[in-house]
C-alpha cells in the first residue's frame, strides 16, 4: 500500500471555495442592485425625491410620457392615473395625479412600485414628489388623489422619444408598521 498523502489542506481549500461561492450567490443580490442603480438598466427609478434647481427647459424636444397603473393580483384597490398620456419638454416640471380607492370594509396599506420603460431612461426620469416614496393607508371605502411631480432630465439621450411609467400597487397591510403611515392631506387633494 502506498503512503497515504495528506489530503486535508486541499479539502479545506475546496470547502472554503464552496462556502465562498454560496456567499457569492447571496452577494449577487446587493451587487445587482448597485449595478442597476448605476446603470438604470432594470427600469428602477430613484426612491429619493429629486430637486430641479439646475434643470433647463429644452423647448426644441418633446417627449411623450405614458402613465400606467395597476393593482397587483392580490390587491383589491382601484388604482388608475388621471392622465393617461402627455407630452413634455425635457426639464419642464409637471404634476399629475393618480386615483386610488379602497373598496373593502377594512383599513388597508398599499405601496406603489414604479418601473420605467425603456429601462435606460429610468436614470433621466426624476420624481420631485411621489406617492411611491411612502406607503398609503386608506380606510374602508376611502378614495385618494395621489400626486406625482416630475421632470425629464434634458440629458436624456436623443433616441428616447417615449417613456412609459408604470406603477404596480401592492397590498402591504400585513407588513406595514404603524408609524410609517403618512399624512396624505398635506400633499394631495384628499376628496373623501
Amino acid at each position, binding site marked *: 500500500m502506498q503512503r497515504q498523502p495528506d*489530503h486535508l489542506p486541499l*479539502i479545506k481549500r475546496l470547502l472554503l471555495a464552496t462556502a465562498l*461561492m*454560496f456567499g457569492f450567490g447571496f452577494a449577487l*443580490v446587493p451587487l*445587482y442592485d448597485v449595478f*442597476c442603480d448605476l*446603470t438604470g438598466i432594470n427600469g428602477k427609478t430613484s426612491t429619493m425625491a429629486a430637486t430641479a434647481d439646475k434643470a433647463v427647459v429644452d423647448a426644441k424636444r418633446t417627449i411623450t410620457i405614458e402613465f400606467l397603473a395597476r393593482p397587483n393580483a392580490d390587491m383589491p384597490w382601484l388604482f388608475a392615473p388621471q392622465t393617461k398620456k402627455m407630452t413634455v419638454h425635457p426639464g419642464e416640471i409637471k404634476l399629475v395625479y393618480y386615483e386610488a380607492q379602497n373598496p373593502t370594509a377594512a383599513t388597508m396599506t398599499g405601496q406603489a*412600485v414604479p418601473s420605467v420603460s425603456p*429601462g435606460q431612461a429610468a436614470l433621466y426620469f426624476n420624481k420631485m414628489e411621489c406617492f411611491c416614496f411612502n406607503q398609503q393607508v386608506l380606510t374602508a371605502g376611502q378614495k385618494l388623489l395621489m400626486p406625482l411631480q416630475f421632470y425629464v432630465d434634458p440629458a436624456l439621450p436623443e433616441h428616447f422619444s417615449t417613456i412609459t411609467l408604470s406603477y404596480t400597487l401592492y397590498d402591504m397591510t400585513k407588513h406595514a408598521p404603524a408609524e410609517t403611515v403618512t399624512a396624505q392631506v398635506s400633499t394631495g387633494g384628499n376628496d373623501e
Partner: protein
Amino acid sequence: MSTVTHDHDTAHHGEHHHHAPSGLKRWLYTTNHKDIGTLYLLFALTMFFIGGAMAMVIRAELFQPGLQLVQADFFNQMTTVHGLIMVFGAVMPAFTGLANWLIPMMIGAPDMALPRMNNWSFWILPFAFAILLASLFMEGGGPGFGWTFYAPLSTKYSGDSTALFVFSVHIMGISSIMGAINVIVTIFNLRAPGMTWMKMPLFVWTWLITAFLLIAVMPVLAGTVTMVLTDKYFGTSFFDAAGGGDPVLFQHIFWFFGHPEVYIMILPAFGIISSIVPTFARKPLFGYASMVYATSSIALLSFLVWAHHMFTTGMPVFAELFFMYCTMLIAVPTGVKVFNWVATMWKGAMTFEVPMMFALAFIVLFTIGGFSGLMLAITPADFQYHDTYFVVAHFHYVLVTGAIFSIIAAAYYWLPKWTGHMYDETLGQWHFWCSLISVNMLFFPMHFVGLAGMPRRIPDYALQFADFNAFISIGGFAFGLSQLLFVWVLVKCIKGGEKATDQVWEGAEGLEWTLSSPPPYHSFTTPPEVK
C-alpha cells in the same frame, strides 16, 4: 483483439472477498470506488427510465392537439420533474459513476482519495429523489414551474411541494459537491509516479475541470433555492417587487449557475469521446494539448454567457451584444475539439463497434446541437426562437445525442473491462441503429415546429402542428422502447458472455487496460510507473 491470458484476475478474486460484508450491507457500507461507481451508474439508469417515462407522458399528451390524457397542471409537473430527474438524476450521477470507476484506474491509484465521503455522497442521492418523486403524490401535486423554477412561479404561484423541491435540490447539490471534492483530491494527490498533468487521459482532465465548475456553481444553486424558500415561507423579498426585490434577479442568479451547469453535463462527454475515437481509429488523439486548453477555455467562458438565456428580459443593447459575442466565442474551442476528433480519424484504420458508432453519432449530432445553439445566440433571432420548440430541439440534441449518447458509448466501451465479458455486438448494433433513427425522428422535427412558432411547456397546440407532433411522439415512443434493448445488452453482459481480454480493444491505450478484466477489487495497490 489480443489474446493475453488473464490468470492473475482469478487470483485477485480470492484474496479480497473474505472480509467484505455480503448482501445489501456490502452495497450500503461500501467505500470501494468500483462498487460506488456501479451504484451511481445503476441509479442513473433507473432515473433515466423514470424521467423517460415522464417524457412518454408528455409525448402521449402531445400526440394530438387538445387535452386528452392529463390535465395541464399534471403536464407541467411532468415537464418540470422530467427535466430535474434527467439533469440531476440521470446525466450527472452517470458521469460521477464513470468518474468513480475510471479515474483511479486511469491515474494508477488504488481507490478514490476520500472513500467514506464517496459512500455518503452516493447514498444521500436516493433520498433526494425519493423526496422529489414523493412530492408528485402530495395534495396539489409536485413542482410544476419548470426545472428552471423562475420566480414568481416558484415563489408566489407554487404549491407546498416547493419546500420538498428545495430540500431535494439541496441534497443533490451537497452530493455533487462532495463528489467534486473527491475527484479533485484524487487527481491532485493520487496520480501514479510519472503521471504528469499533460500525460493525464483526457477523461481525467475534463472531469477535473468539471469538478471545479461544480464547486463554483452548485453552491450558487443552493443559494438560489434557499432564496426561493425564504421568499415563499419566511417573508423575504429577494425576488418580490412589492418588497423591493426583482424577479429578473432570479434569472441572473439561476443562469449564473445554469450555464456552467450545461457544461458540467458535456465536458466529461468530451473526455469520453476523446478516449473512444483514438481506440477505434487506432491512432493517438490528434491535438492532445489543444483539447486540454479548449476544455479549460470553455469552462472559463461559461461564466460570461449566462444572460443569453435572458435576451427577452429587456436588457440594454450593449449587454445583449456582449453576451451574444461571448456565446459565439465558445464555438471556437468547441470547434477545435470537433476538428481534433475528425483529424484523429483521418487515415486511421477504423472499425465500427458499438462504442465507436455512438461516438460518431455524438460528433455529428452534438455538432448539430451546437449549430442550433449558435443560432439561438444571435440576439435578434433569439427573440423569435425564445421559448419555442426550437430551444427544446437544441438542448435535447446536446443533452440526449450529446451527453446521453456519450454515456451509452462509455458503457459499451468499458463494459467488457468492468464485467470481464464482451457485450453482444449484434444486439448493441440494433440498439444503436434504433436509437439513432428514433432520436432524430423525435428531435429533428422540433426545429421546424419551433421555427413555426410552437411554444414549449404547453400541453396543447394549434392544429397546424398536429402532423409533426404525431410524428415526433412516434419517434419518442420508439426511442424509449429502444433503450430497453440497452438494458437487455447490459443484463446479458453482466451475466456472462465471451471472456474479455485485458486490453479488450486492439487500439486501446491507458492504464485501465493494463489491469485484468474484470479488474481486481483494489487496483494498483502498488502504483504503476508511467513513462
